[in-house]
């Protein structure tokens, strides 16, 4: 028994005690192979997963290092089964390699013929293979490069991809650092990606992932396809690139529902890529018709499943994934690993916050007691309408009004799910609203006004959940939300986590009806936010009215 900061649990979670003097050192040591799962105030939870261990292998760590680290920092004895499992899992990575062969094209090479024998017998693998060249080598059809990596990962024998990349069409891109500087971690992330070839960079919301993308493009100096979640995000990328790089207006094209431009740098939305015409994906050609040197996937954790299918076919192009979290609610983490690539860089947001690049945030849940009538309406509502009933009560509106009044000098966003409620709020607060049917021009105009501080408060619907950039919002008030989904929470919080000029603490209010399912959803939200390490408080609506916030 030592006095280390780490406790290794039998379910492969690692508990790290934050107040321990060695905790920072230990965190650095385990970060390459363990996924941070929760980071509340005292003890952070990491998890050992196969993908995490393979990520570590891809980054050049071996099982011995991992085991040494665990033994070194562990407070109690480490369960034997876990050590065995780590060695076993890590040894699986790299036994199979994909390489380019001058004669046979793409080949699968093994250091362990037994493994090769095992995988070539698998039903899913056999059709992808060509002739056997020698006991250690077998040809693979080049078009199956992605498919085979996917299938091998599912078999538990991830292949390392050394087959290299095409350079793509050359295009001069460089960063223009006037009035701003690339942050050290952004530079490290871009370099980590470039050396790894392809892969994913994990940075928290608000840490400037766009800049990492731009830096990666400057490395590649080639034509680039950028896939983003929606049109607004596409415009934002365009703005950023114009501002941060040598790219000119006519070098950047938008490929969306509205426009179909193909330029040296083309920004396409997931939506248009996955649009079907007569049962076939109509815009699939975009991947092939142009000789892209780099493909950037924004918000990898939201990447729709069909995109993976296209991605499988373009394995010879460099791919960069950008995301705030590797956790996907659909469980497709394995696809990200095999098709886009291993994790190349990540940095916990606490560290970035400590460096002052992200604003600290405080989460406050405001509990509203419903009036008798409202409670009755809620109690007698049909189950499917219940949430709507408790989420849109009159009492809530008053509290929102009061909160807005309290933060009259701040940049406030009011976020909600139900349009009626938002319309009402916009009317009462006398502020503009942005919702699904607001024309893009109008949205941009309002966002610009808000950015310049000419508008202090904005009511926004779900559209705000995706990649918009509102640098100066310091307060967010959430009035209703879809069932406390983790992703949504992360996005909403991301909205207000941009660094504030004066280093003020950002505030994230959620207004919740007491004793209703609203409160149950709030519980999920609380768990998620606390797990992310945000401070979380609950106050009563009365406190708001009495100014005790």
């Amino acid at each position, binding site marked *: 028994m030592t006095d280390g900061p780490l406790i290794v649990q039998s*379910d492969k979670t690692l*508990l790290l005690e934050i107040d321990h003097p060695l905790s920072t050192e230990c965190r650095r040591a385990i970060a390459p192979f363990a996924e941070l799962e929760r980071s509340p105030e005292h003890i952070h939870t990491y998890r050992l997963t196969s993908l995490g261990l393979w990520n570590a292998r891809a980054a050049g760590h071996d099982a011995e290092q991992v085991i040494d680290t665990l033994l070194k920092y562990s407070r*109690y*004895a480490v369960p*034997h089964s876990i050590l065995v499992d780590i060695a076993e899992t890590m040894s699986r990575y790299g036994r199979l390699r994909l390489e380019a062969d001058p004669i046979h094209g793409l080949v699968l090479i093994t250091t362990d013929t037994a493994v090769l024998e095992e995988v070539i017998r698998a039903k899913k693998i056999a059709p992808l293979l060509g002739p056997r060249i020698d006991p250690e080598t077998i040809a693979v059809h080049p078009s199956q490069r992605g498919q085979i990596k996917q299938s091998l990962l599912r078999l538990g024998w991830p292949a390392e991809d050394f087959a290299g990349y095409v350079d793509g069409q050359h295009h001069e891109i460089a960063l223009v650092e006037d009035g701003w500087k690339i942050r050290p971690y952004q530079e490290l992330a871009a370099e980590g990606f470039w050396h790894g070839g392809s892969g994913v960079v994990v940075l928290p919301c608000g840490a400037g992932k766009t800049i990492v993308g731009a830096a990666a493009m400057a490395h590649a100096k080639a034509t680039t396809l950028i896939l983003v979640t929606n049109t607004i995000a596409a415009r934002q990328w365009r703005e950023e690139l114009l501002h941060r790089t040598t790219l000119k207006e006519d070098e950047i094209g938008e490929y969306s529902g509205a426009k179909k431009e193909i330029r040296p740098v083309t920004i396409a939305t997931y939506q248009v890529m996955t649009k079907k015409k007569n049962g076939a994906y109509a815009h699939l050609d975009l991947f092939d018709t142009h000789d892209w040197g780099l493909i950037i996937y924004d918000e990898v954790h939201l990447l729709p499943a069909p995109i993976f299918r296209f991605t499988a076919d373009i394995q010879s192009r460099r791919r960069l994934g950008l995301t705030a979290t590797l956790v996907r609610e659909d469980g497709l983490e394995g696809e990200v690993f095999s098709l886009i690539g291993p994790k190349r860089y990540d940095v916990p947001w606490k560290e970035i916050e400590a460096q002052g690049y992200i604003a600290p945030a405080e989460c406050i849940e405001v509990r509203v007691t419903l009036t008798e009538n409202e409670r009755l309406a809620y109690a007698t509502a049909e189950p499917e309408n219940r949430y709507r009933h408790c989420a849109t009560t009159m009492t809530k509106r008053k509290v929102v009004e009061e909160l807005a009044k309290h933060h009259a000098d701040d940049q406030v966003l009011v976020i909600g799910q139900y349009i009626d409620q938002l319309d009402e709020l916009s009317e009462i607060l006398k502020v503009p609203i942005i919702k699904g049917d607001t024309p893009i021009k109008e949205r941009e105009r309002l966002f610009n006004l808000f950015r310049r501080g000419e508008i202090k408060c904005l009511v926004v619907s779900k559209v705000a959940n995706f990649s918009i950039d509102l640098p100066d919002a310091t307060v967010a008030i959430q009035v209703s939300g879809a069932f406390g989904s983790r992703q949504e929470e992360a996005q909403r919080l991301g909205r207000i986590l941009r660094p504030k000029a004066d280093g003020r603490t950002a505030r994230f209010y959620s207004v919740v009806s007491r004793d209703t399912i609203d409160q149950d959803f709030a519980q999920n939200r609380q768990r998620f936010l606390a797990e992310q390490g945000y401070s979380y408080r609950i106050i009563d609506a009365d406190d708001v009215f009495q100014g005790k916030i």
Partner: protein
Amino acid sequence: METRSFTDYLRGLDDAALLSLFALRPDLISPVPPELSSLGIRANSAPSLARAVDSLNEWQFQVLEACAALSEPMSEKEIISVTDTSAKFVIPHLMNLALAYKSKDGIRLPNSLREVLGNEPAGLGPVSMAKPSMKKLDEAPESSKKVLERLTWGPPRGSVGDIRNPGPGIAWLLKENFLVPLDQRTVALPREIAIHLRGGKVQKNPQPNPPVVTGEKIDQKIVDRAAIANITTVLQWCEEILNFWSEEPPNALRAGGLGVRDLKAAAEHLGVDENCAAFISELVYLGGLVVIDADDRILPTHAFDLWLTLSPQVRWRTLTSAWLVTSRVSGLVGRADSKHVAALGPELDRVNAATTRKLTLEILGLNPYFSPEIDSFLALIKWRAPARRNPGLQSELVRWTLREAEWLGITGQRALSKYGAAFVQVREDLNIGADLPKPVDHILIQSDNTAIAPGPLEIEVARNLDSIADIESRGGATVYRFSETSIRRGLDHGKTGEEIKEFLRRTSKTPMPQPLEYLITDVSKRHGRLRVGNTSAYIRCEDPTLITQILSDKKVDDLPLRRIAPEVLVCELEANEVITVLRAAGYMPAAESGSGVLLTARRLNRAKSRPHPPRIVGEIEVPTDETLAAALRALRAGERSSHKQSSLREIAANALGSLPRTTANETMDILNKFIKEQRTLSIGYADNNGSATHRIIDPLSISAGSLIARDHGTGEVQTFRIPRITGVAPL
């Protein structure tokens, strides 16, 4: 007669030799035979000999086989010449075991031994009747040599198409008596020829030395640390599985045992694979901590509650000791070829399980901190205990034992740990308690509604916490999660919201996060409401006077009570507050649910049956020195009395001629008189079949129609039924 001579040999043994024989072959004295001739018969019986043969190692067996290949009587020299010089160290051991014995003319084997070893020991054929000349063998034609080659190392028999019309090679051999015909189609190679062809030896590969176990030395610290982790884990597993079954007792299969689905559920609950879950189930079963109850439910016993109160060291030792001696093999559960074999079921006993387990541990014990390579380990086991009857199972038993020893923490990183070593040597102090992580008495509560115990919790704290939080992760630390459900469970178990908060404040090293406080308040508020009606509490009592008393009691003045029925009071306060006030005022209120069910402390399901761990099959315990000495005494006494008996019978028969006959009255008179005078007398006594015999007895007392007397024949105090006494006569 050979049997006679074997018995004579036994008769000739001194006490020390008999004691060592009993120690080596404990089945001979279970039960203690009445006299040496019975001992002789038993020692010469095939089952007992087979046991003794099973106890030999490979080399000892080879020597014994060689003996069996020779004709009796034989000399040590002969044995050595067909084996190896080191055989001379083995022969005394074979004699100690009475697998061979010295008669006047040389070394002989008990005659049933050949049955046990088979007709063709070491693949050797029958003894030739003729005396063929070995020199002639060199002249054998090529085809004959080929035949000989095939038969030399056994099996010694070969079939020919027709004995009257054999091939030229065989014909020559038959003619020269190098082959003997067995029947119409079979010929055999005579024993002497084979031994000659084998170069004068019996075995192809004599193995006088044990194979060497290879493996790697592991750092002592690492081994012990890994072992202590395993020990902690296994104890936790046992506790977990029993608590799990306490809450949801699985139903036993009709054939007995734990169903596959329940095993899976247990495995999932523990987060282990099914092999391990089967092992844990069996382990707690062996320890008597769980039982299949009369209603076929599998339930923890009261022994479990006792077990929980013991120190970790004792808890571990209890289970590990039971595991060591059991004949049950949990590794058999859920194998592809035996799907119906269930944990806790009736089909897990295997005869050699305990022996193999002990041997495995013994060999591990030879090399502490040494992780053996499995194949070399198996080779040594095979040499030490050649399993002739079920070799496949043996290697599996060894593998399972090694696996289980790791789970138990006898080994760590597959090498024997200091705890394992102490356990194997049956040392009192295993030092487990001192090396286990110190129990902690505090938790760290975090705002994501988890609490972390950064070490094993003190049992009281753990129990309290168990009732109000769900365990999310186990290991060195425990992660608890608070949720509405878990808090409600705590309230269901009779805690109040305030009590929970107070407990957490007291136990947590970190301040209680505000959201958790809200959660507890919210839940307990709702919980209370559910318990007593819509908004307020009620107090009800079968006895209206008590209700009146409460109403007029000054001590509960601050309770805003309202009587809504003679037996019911309503109160604006919450039930828990009411209870607190009532308790403070000296009443003994009990909380109840809407249906009137009392809410008391958490309900623990325990079996009604007493613990009855499974019995051990097929093993005879190694007797202690006392047992051995007692057995010897009894045997010697038996021997003496059987002499005495026959002589006394003779005397009685001679002196008395016929059986004494007296009337019932006379009998009683004489008996009473002789009891007083403490004199020996002779009686006629009818046995169950009605045949009367003479008995010489010292009468002691008469009670309830029976005479209690010492029988000179058996030397024991016996009860004689008076109506069966045909008559009495003084000697």
